[in-house]
């Protein structure tokens, strides 16, 4: 019945968090069909996995499965868009801007986010969009908190955004 209990908890969690998990999948896929594919694959993985021994990590565990499934999907599709270093050179340096002015126009910023290396983009999505704590992001990605922090700074630098980590 340990199975049963874990299943009940997991199913309740998936139902409650389905919108967030879908958005996360969509942030990689960029379209509904692929996002649904990624999410379904991830949910099947979660539902067929051995019961988690520490249920307090259920949330981060499910995020991890969705992220890893999305990364696998990206690898399969070979959809990596290499970051062209020159792309960012065209952006005026911070000092040349009026305070509050966007560094990149809205569309460009979205494009810039999408063209970040995936490991950086994932951290931005989890930290700022899913609003996880740094430690939680580290748990999801199974990384050291300091590594997460370093990558987040790097990502923000690439996006030409100045904000608190």
């Amino acid at each position: 019945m340990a199975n049963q209990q874990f299943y009940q908890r997991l199913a309740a969690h998936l139902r409650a968090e389905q919108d967030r998990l879908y958005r996360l999948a969509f942030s990689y896929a960029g379209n509904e069909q692929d996002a649904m594919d990624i999410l379904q694959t991830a949910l099947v993985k979660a539902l067929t996995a051995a019961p988690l021994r520490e249920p307090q990590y259920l949330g981060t565990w499910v995020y991890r499965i969705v992220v890893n499934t999305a990364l696998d999907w990206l690898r399969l599709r070979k959809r990596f868009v290499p970051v062209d270093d020159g792309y960012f050179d065209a952006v005026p340096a911070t000092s040349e801007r009026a305070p509050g002015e966007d560094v990149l126009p809205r569309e460009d910023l979205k494009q810039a986010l999408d063209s970040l290396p995936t490991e950086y983009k994932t951290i931005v999505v989890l930290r700022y969009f899913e609003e996880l704590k740094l430690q939680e992001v580290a748990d999801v990605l199974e990384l050291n908190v300091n590594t997460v922090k370093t990558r987040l700074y790097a990502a923000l630098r690439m996006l030409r955004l100045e904000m608190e980590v």
Partner: protein
Amino acid sequence: MTKGMDQLKARYDATPIPSHLAARVDDLCESHRPRTSVWSVPGWRWALATAAGALFFLTLAVNALPAQASTLSDIPVLGSLVRVLTFVDYAAEESGYEAHIRIARIEGLENQQLEDAINAELLADGQALIAQYEADVAALQAEYGEETIHRGVETYYEIMCSNDEVFSLRVEYFVAAGGSNTSYDFYNVNQRTGELMTLGSLFRPGTDHLEVINEYLLEQMRAAVDEAGHPLYWVDETDPYVDAFEGIEADHDFYVSQEGRLVIAFDKYEVAPGYVGTPEFVIPTELIESLLAEGVPIH
């Protein structure tokens, strides 16, 4: 946050959520319910829908069948001597566990032997269900003690057709265990010959009736999928996690409607996601007319 990140987050939050996401998540969860469940009654499909859906269906079913709500009541059928009554009415309710199992008994069939056989089967099936329910509650109570676990079993029966030619009875099994499942048993009697009808017996031997019916079913399902814009039925591998429906088998569930049409019935989750319910397809008689055996009561 800076304006740029605010905008990105707003955009992220505005990701449109597909209307069928909830139903899909439900189906995935329910189709992966652990098989070791004490609720695994053999032969029942254990894919389940949402608790909300279960409640809705339960309410609907009760309201739709007022005759079954009363106990030990005779259900007179107009224009026929066949009667169906509740032979055993088992009701139990205890802190979240709930069962209402009605065992039907048929009276007045032309063929007494067949009537006895059907009644024996109805009784045996019902008693097995009651025994299973009681064993399950005992097991759950041993496991969870005072904690409220919501489980429910209901059975209903409904006369689908009763006239001089045909008597069709449907027994419905409804089970709620977090989600819900509905499956059916059908008894179709040719009142002219006094024989139990199987799907195959309706057609002349050697006809390709299954191909004709399946072609029609698939055509109807594909049209419904096209119209809905999402996989309303599991046809043509629209969903990578379930087997696509390829056609019914020779002994598939059916009944004869009051109008004398052949109706192909599916259990919940048999060909479609849970929110579709228990689909039925009325086969146009002109499609199968030339294949029917002589004297079968299909019009």
